[in-house]
């Protein structure tokens, strides 16, 4: 066991910290879940990309630094510590890109990855449908073969598509085999949102921002080169993405450690010398949990680096970080007392945190997965 960083890693951190100190906007940007804020965030992404900080773990040819997972962890730590802007490109970078690297053709990789990293093209996720939420396999949107058009005709509706109203592209699952049921007969498509027959309607999330969208497909033609992975192979292709969404990549500990540090600062600021007998324990528990999450991640990264890919244990991680994030913000709001209802980063953060136990597989689904696939309890 070795819990200190190598000189190279420390140098990486130092360079990054210096760059962030020089470039992170002094004023927080407007929410990236609004049209104007999204544009402002894309400019920031461009700045990150030009300095090759946008996708540190990617190969250099696509704008990355070929950084190790350890360096990526350091990047996340520093990024959140610096309170740098939210990553509006994250659905592409964290959800689609791993799948593109694994299943994409060389042409698809060349065509999409760099533009994704620079924010020139922005991607939203087309999983959920009105009747396919927790039950993702209930997808009904179809893709019908169109030989004359040299591709597929998309029909149906996706919904709860994060930032769909502002993005240029969508990746999602459509049913190519109408006779197949549940997980079978689905195909993974890459869809430019300006394709004729595609209509996007933004709608509000809990916090009022237009961060959600419904996407309607009416005989929208997508060519064969926009199929990712094999036809009818969509589910297994997508699971790689879901795996990374539910697992390590989206929720690095940096975010929660930074929040825990801000919570501690808030406690000291509000409570001063006399310990608040009621909230002191809550703050301490949340701080310890954030630390536990960081250490558990180091454990996981050690395993992954040794060639043992993150598996179903990612369900444990998802439940823990999402409920920790809620606790961190609940505790902060409790410290704010009557001011909790006022507009503040803590309230905004609380509203966002409340989505954690719901998306990427509700925590109810995750606990089923833990019980059945980690503990081996019987399904029926």
């Amino acid at each position, binding site marked *: 066991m070795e819990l200190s960083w190598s000189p190279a890693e420390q140098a990486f951190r130092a360079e990054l910290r210096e760059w962030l100190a020089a470039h992170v906007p002094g004023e927080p940007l407007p929410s990236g879940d609004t049209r104007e804020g999204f544009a402002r965030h894309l400019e920031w992404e461009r700045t990150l990309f030009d300095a090759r900080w946008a996708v540190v773990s990617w190969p250099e040819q696509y704008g990355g630094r070929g950084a190790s997972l350890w360096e990526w962890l350091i990047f996340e730590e520093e990024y959140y510590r610096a309170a740098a802007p939210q990553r509006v490109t994250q659905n592409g970078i964290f959800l689609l890109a791993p799948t593109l690297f694994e299943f994409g053709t060389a042409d698809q990789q060349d065509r999409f990855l760099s533009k994704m990293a620079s924010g020139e093209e922005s991607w939203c996720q087309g999983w*959920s449908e009105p*009747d396919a*939420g*927790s*039950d993702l396999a*209930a997808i009904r949107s179809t893709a019908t073969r169109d030989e004359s058009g040299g591709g597929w005709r998309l029909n149906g509706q996706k*919904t*709860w598509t994060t930032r769909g109203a502002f993005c240029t592209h969508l990746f999602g699952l459509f049913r190519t085999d109408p006779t197949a049921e549940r997980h079978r007969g689905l195909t993974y498509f890459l869809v430019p949102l300006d394709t004729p027959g595609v209509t996007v309607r933004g*709608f*509000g*999330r*809990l*916090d*009022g921002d237009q961060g*959600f969208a419904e996407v309607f497909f009416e005989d929208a033609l997508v060519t064969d080169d926009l199929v990712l992975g094999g036809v009818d192979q969509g589910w297994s292709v997508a699971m790689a993405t879901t795996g990374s969404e539910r697992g390590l990549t989206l929720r690095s500990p940096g975010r929660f450690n930074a929040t825990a540090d801000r919570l501690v600062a808030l406690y000291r600021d509000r409570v001063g010398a006399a310990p*608040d*007998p*009621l*909230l002191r324990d809550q703050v301490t528990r949340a701080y310890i949990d954030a630390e536990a999450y960081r250490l558990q991640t180091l454990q996981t990264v050690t395993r992954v680096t040794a060639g043992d890919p993150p598996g179903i244990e990612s369900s444990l991680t998802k439940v823990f970080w999402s409920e920790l994030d*809620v606790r961190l913000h609940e505790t902060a*709001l*409790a410290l*704010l*007392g*009557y*001011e*909790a*209802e*006022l*507009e503040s980063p803590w*309230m905004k953060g609380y*509203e966002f945190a*409340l*989505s954690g*136990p*719901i*998306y990427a597989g*509700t*925590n*109810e689904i995750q*606990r*089923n997965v833990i019980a059945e696939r980690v503990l081996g309890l019987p399904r029926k």
Partner: protein
Amino acid sequence: MQFAFTEDQLAFRDAVRDLLAKECPPSVVRAAWSNADGRSGSAWNALGEMGVLGALVPEVSGGLGLSELDVVLLAEETGRVALPEPFVEHVLVGAPLAVLEHPDVVNGVMTVSAGDPVIPYGVAADVIVVLAPDAQLATGSSATFEALTSVDASRRLTRLVEANTSRPLTRDEISVAFWRATLGYSAQLLGLARQMLDMTVAYATERRQFGSPIGSFQAIKHQLANVRIALEFAAPLVYRAAHSLATNDPDAALHCSMGKAQAADAGMLAASTALQCHGAIGYSYEHDLHLWMKRTWALAGAWGDAAWHRDRVARAILDRPA
């Protein structure tokens, strides 16, 4: 010994419930998020005509001369429909304090709001009661406010900057006002929670995933059962607090703190459970759930949050010399 409301109290409750069902559907709450003053309009006038807005005003001053025990269920009903009005501020706090200077508060032609220290609907109110930093009764037209933004956009929160025409409040007035407001918010939290539970039960019965209504899954059943349990053991503390205020029980303040702490916790549990069981649908701004949820967040923190009130209980039961 009789822990129950009278026929009259229940009949009054039913009448107000019927009125609010008609005058304050969810569309009115949603409209108040974006209209001029954040208020319901007709619901307020209808409550005024019914006499509810002067319920605690002595009959000699034209009110109904009722007690906290008579109105606690009415406050709960205004919570159930998330009535966007300074109901507690006016009925339980402001009208009885202001009626001598401003007789029109009895029927709601003049509106009183109140806060400690922040005041909902301050700008729209004709009369202001504020308990901190300087406890006073002020004429709205003579006052200037700092506008604040509440997570519940209908609350139109303000902070009093200064008022030219005002009188200070006595220590007794301050104490009565504070505990009545605490009681009123506790009751509204119960109503909000009951409505969120009903909404969620209805949704879980109709929403199907994996071929079954999600309400048939134990994970949903047990979460909702826990909310029902929390309500079952919060409401009696709130009703007892109302009785203690109405009978000038020496422990009335302690009882109000127990009620607020428990009602706030039950409300927060109901809110987060309702959201979790609704999933992404409930997370959508277009769905009504968030209107109830955000009102709950606001009321849970105002007039002392659960931690503050539990600390008062702790001081009374743990710290006093044995």
